């Protein structure tokens, strides 16, 4: 599978010279199978450019939403294939406790917040409210599981017969567990990330920032590394960068923490356009 990062920023899109290296678009990851199956994880502002790249080239696409916070759905209305009547678009998102996924998405995709109604989109739209479970799309086996983050939020594990990746974009496992001490059975997201080839994980805060934002649903870079260590992943991609972290700050933060933690696996700070090829 080929994985491409189209948006790596957390919370709020931020463009400018100070975020040029890592990018300012919010969460969006493309996962392309060898058989042509196209998965998109989250529909942050990064999905707009991805939509342009695949426009008129696809007949089916599957969008997996981790949750419905604005930074993960804001790009949806700007995804070109939604306006193509020949394209089948499947959107998967966390089942809500009291109403259907359609109602939640319609809150955003309707006036006065957005000019086009969800029901007026020309594409062949199918919504799937999902929870803990496993399903298959093309060559991919997908495991979805609720994780520690305010509001119902899913993490995903995507596997083929030869490789696996996990996506835990908004995830605060340290809120519920001692990352270093507790048994992994009590570790949020562990089953999704266990021994994956590639883990894309929330790394929004510094330790100092986290102290004032405990419970907001995000991790420190250090906790992301510790989580990856417990899960025995091969490669960690830090993701959901804080809008306040400029390129030079992100470079320094990661270098400093890697020097301290000395992890036995590879770490990359996720940036727009970065691709990973898994067998």
């Amino acid at each position, binding site marked *: 599978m080929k994985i491409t990062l189209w948006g790596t920023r957390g919370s709020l899109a931020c463009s400018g010279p100070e975020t040029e290296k890592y990018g300012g678009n919010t969460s969006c990851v493309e996962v392309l199978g060898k058989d042509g199956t196209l998965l998109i994880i989250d529909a942050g502002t990064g999905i707009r450019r991805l939509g342009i790249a695949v426009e008129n080239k696809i007949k089916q696409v599957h969008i997996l939403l981790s949750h419905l916070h604005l930074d993960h759905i804001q790009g949806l209305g700007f995804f070109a294939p939604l306006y193509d009547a020949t394209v089948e678009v499947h959107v998967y998102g966390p089942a809500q406790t009291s109403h259907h996924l359609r109602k939640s998405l319609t809150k955003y995709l309707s006036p006065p917040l957005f000019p086009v109604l969800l029901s007026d989109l020309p594409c062949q739209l199918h919504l799937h409210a999902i929870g*803990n479970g496993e399903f298959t799309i093309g060559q991919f086996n997908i495991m979805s599981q*609720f994780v520690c983050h305010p509001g119902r939020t899913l993490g995903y594990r995507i596997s083929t017969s030869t490789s696996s990746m996990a996506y835990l974009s908004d995830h605060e496992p340290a809120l*519920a567990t001692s990352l270093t001490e507790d048994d992994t059975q*009590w*570790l949020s997201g562990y089953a999704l990330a266990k021994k994956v080839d590639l883990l894309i994980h929330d790394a929004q805060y510094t330790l100092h920032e986290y102290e004032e934002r405990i419970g907001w649903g995000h991790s420190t870079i250090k906790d992301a590394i510790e989580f990856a260590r417990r899960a025995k992943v091969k490669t960690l991609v830090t993701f959901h960068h804080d809008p306040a972290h400029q390129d030079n700050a992100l470079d320094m933060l990661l270098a400093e923490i890697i020097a301290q933690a000395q992890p036995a696996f590879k770490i990359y700070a996720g940036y727009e356009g970065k691709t990973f090829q898994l067998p």
Partner: protein
Amino acid sequence: MAQKKIELILFRQFANYLAMPAFLTDLNGQLIFCNEATEERLGFRFSETGEMTAQQWSVIFALQDHGGNPIDTNQLPFTTTLQQKSMAHGQFYLRTLKHAVKQVKVTTIPLLTERDEFLAVMTFFQEIFL
């Protein structure tokens, strides 16, 4: 051991912050977690005993009624919650591992999640001081 579902993980975290005794049992009656307040009241360390079956904990804590008769697990609020997916309450005596006999009030609550999935039984209890 398989990773627990997020609702159980979050309950455990919540209960760890409480000063009131709380514990979790799975749908087989297996004690899968108890907080420090429970450990303190019952005189044991969960980290040392590990998980216990319903049969084990009902015998270890010598659950008994007002007349001193052993209480079968079928008579416990826990069983009502398990069978009826509803809250239940009860009052009985138990013996701690430090050999103190205590009277307790117990409330059990089904932990229901998406699509009415029944994950576990949450139990809260309180000592009755006469």
